[in-house]
């Protein structure tokens, strides 16, 4: 068995074990495990609109997780996808509301580019701190993520608040219907093609370009890369930028797709779940695609379950946590490699 296959099998085993542990906890707490799991199957696959809903959630997870994969290739852990995602969505919203009369195609294009740019800026700052001063990017990207959430809150409660809005949560105005790429379901051929194209592109960049190979060398041993004449800082910044651009893009797809307007604290978990997706996907593009679909299904099920069982929604977040926990234990090797990296790039 090749080592890649072995790792994949292990990961599947761990996911199954997480399910079993969760089932046990539910059982002990007096829920019917059978009902809950049939609810999960319904919510993710069989109920009307369930599989669409699964795909709808898989899309942002996939895009952000690809960003994590890219960062990791160069030896960095960008876990701030949430903030980059928010900033992307806000920028696309600003363009779309500011230029309502514009031709739809052009506005969407500009909005998407602005979203990616915002994602880039939001991750480039921690990236710069990292390559310049050796600041741990796990902390800084996380902090930037919190700032991003607060900026969203400020914008939706202040400058971008919908004055006609009722309801208790602050939300923006809706973008014109003409700018939307999907209906409320969040899935359309255009979006699927776009995401598929981006995925293939990311794979090509990582595996079939000199930049991708350079990132791998830097991620594995930055000292050696420097001796080989590689500009380690520039490669690091490039990885951070690409990583942020993907998260920003996810924000634009969310806005032009299912959301149409921004609500304070929307999709609050997606950026963090994406990190788990990337890890479960073994930091490999195709593995990440599979993991994103899986977690998209889980997300859809979480939203569906309260309808058919008396289970409170947080109970399933337990399952998320369990998978994340077990998979992360397996990834202690990741941290080890990171330690070597810090040593090599600082200074």
């Amino acid at each position, binding site marked *: 068995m090749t080592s890649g296959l072995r790792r994949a099998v292990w990961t599947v085993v761990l996911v199954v074990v997480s399910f079993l542990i969760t089932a046990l906890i539910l059982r002990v707490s007096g829920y019917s495990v059978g009902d809950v799991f049939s609810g999960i199957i319904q919510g993710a696959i069989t109920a009307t609109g369930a599989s669409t809903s699964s795909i709808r959630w898989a899309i942002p997870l996939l895009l952000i997780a690809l960003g994590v994969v890219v960062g990791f290739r160069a030896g960095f852990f960008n876990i701030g996808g949430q903030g980059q995602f928010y900033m992307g969505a806000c920028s696309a919203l600003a363009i779309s509301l500011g230029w309502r009369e514009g031709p739809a195609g052009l506005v969407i294009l500009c909005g998407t580019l602005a979203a990616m740019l915002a994602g880039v800026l939001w991750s480039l700052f921690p990236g710069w701190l990292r390559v310049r001063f050796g600041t741990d990017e796990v902390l800084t990207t996380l902090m930037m993520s919190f700032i991003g959430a607060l900026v969203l809150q400020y914008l939706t409660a202040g400058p971008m608040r919908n004055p006609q809005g009722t309801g208790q949560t602050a939300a923006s105005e809706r973008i014109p219907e003409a700018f939307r790429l999907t209906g409320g379901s969040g899935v359309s051929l255009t979006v699927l093609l776009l995401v598929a194209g981006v995925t293939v592109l990311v794979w090509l960049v990582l595996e079939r*370009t*000199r930049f991708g*190979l350079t990132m791998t060398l830097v991620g594995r*041993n930055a000292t*050696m890369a*420097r*001796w080989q*004449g590689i500009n380690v800082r520039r490669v690091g910044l490039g990885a951070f930028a690409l990583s942020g651009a993907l998260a920003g893009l996810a924000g634009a797809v969310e806005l032009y797709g299912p959301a149409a307007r921004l609500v304070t604290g929307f999709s609050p978990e997606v950026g963090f779940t994406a990190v788990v997706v990337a890890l479960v996907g073994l930091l490999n593009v195709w593995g990440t695609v599979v993991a994103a679909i899986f977690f998209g299904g889980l997300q859809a099920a979480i939203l569906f379950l309260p309808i058919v069982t008396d289970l409170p929604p947080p109970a399933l977040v337990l399952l998320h946590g369990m998978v994340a926990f077990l998979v992360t234990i397996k990834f202690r090797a990741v941290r080890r*490699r990171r330690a070597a990296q810090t040593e090599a790039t600082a200074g």
Partner: protein
Amino acid sequence: MTAPSGPAPAGVPAVRCRSLGVSFGAVRALHDVSLELAPGRIHALVGQNGAGKTTLAKVLGGLQVPDAGDVRIAGRDIPPGDVRAAKAAGLAMVHQHFSLPPSFTVAEALELTAARPGGRAVYRRGDLQRRWQEDVAEIGGTAALSTRIRDLPVEARQSLEIVRALATEARLLLLDEPTALLTPVAIDSLFERLRSLRDGGVTILVVLHKLREVAAVADTVSVLRDGELVLGPAEMSEVSQGRLSDAIVGPGGHADSAVGVRAAAHESTETLLELAGTSSSESAFEPGLTAVDLRVEAGEIVGIAGVEGNGQRSLVSVIAGLTPVTEGTVRIGGDEVTAAAPARRRLRGLRLVPFDRNAEGISRSAPLWLNQSALRLLGRRRGRSPLISLRQYKRQASEAMDLWRVRYDTATQPAESLSGGNVQRLILSRELADGVEVLVAAQPTRGLDFAATEFVRRSLRGLREAGAGVLLVSSDLDELFELSDRLLVMYGGRIVAEFDGPYDRRAVGDAMTGAVR
């Protein structure tokens, strides 16, 4: 983890292993190896790069589970892969690859890993350092006890590995190429220590490459070739040098053809590398450069002699562009590159064999082909597709590695799975592949078996013939004398003397100690 008391009963071999077999994929690292080592003697183990020496040592130490066979140490059965049992039977090991924890200070690392008797649970820092001071000094180590392992140069790390192993009251000592990184003086004092340990009843198995060293220290010698024990253990007095080297290379092994080194064509009097009044600031273990003037012309090998730690590292790093120049200039191939990025120097034809092959020369977890292809990733290729052909990369890498006789299974295996000497070959296969203008080679034959050493020396001469320039930094005076057209001596970050052949060993030696200034 206590050392067993007293020597093993007479007549019981210190080590006895039977029919050991280890395979990695298609590579047979050990095949049907049976060996008995008599107690209280120094046994040398020799063989070409990749012959299986390290693998054998690891099996004995319980670090590698064999596919077949069994191991007994001092009459006790050692379950396969049981490190503790091996230690309990009195075994200590000096690894070819360093194993001290990088973020610990020297004293901490020694205390934690040496399992020296009489330790306490809690220490004052001063006490801890005092406890280890003598050991470090004895082996000629210069490392300050409060330095972190990761900040030490490779040579100092190597001597600490030895200190650690000697400090345990081991009855069986395995040393895997302990001399590869040591200065001649340190080698002498190591051998002295080994002899006195032997006289105290300790059994020693030492992996060596230089037959001179084997003759100097060993009582018996064993030879591994392609994973098989082809000779020994035989008394040193009973094997001639010729028979020994035949056993090592095997039938037809001597026909190692010269490598086709390709260098850029040159007018023969061009200056390819020039440092003029170059200075740099000092680093942790090295003086910086002070007003260094140095020229390497086309078709010339210039040697740099000096005791380790006199600025050689700074010199290589300054030329590579990794240490900034504070004063003076650096030119490569006539272009000033004083402030140029490392990439530009590489593209200009600079090739480097760095001191620390495992940390600076390769990426241990990356596949062989990527390590081999690293230089192809530099620079822009205008008008070419941004996509590359992995198949082509892998093919080119395999060809270059085959040319250098790197012993590997597939091009996708990680570089860390190569034997020590094969890592060096991998680096050379990359640096000498194409378009060499100037080669700066730091200890290029370190850890190579003698056939490979010859091969490298021939290649360096080949480069000279092809009109490239070579700057050879070495602590091996014989190598320097043999290859250099001119010899410069570094002391305290300066070039203190220049010699033309034929060289006077005494005069060069004096210059190295700073006697001529």
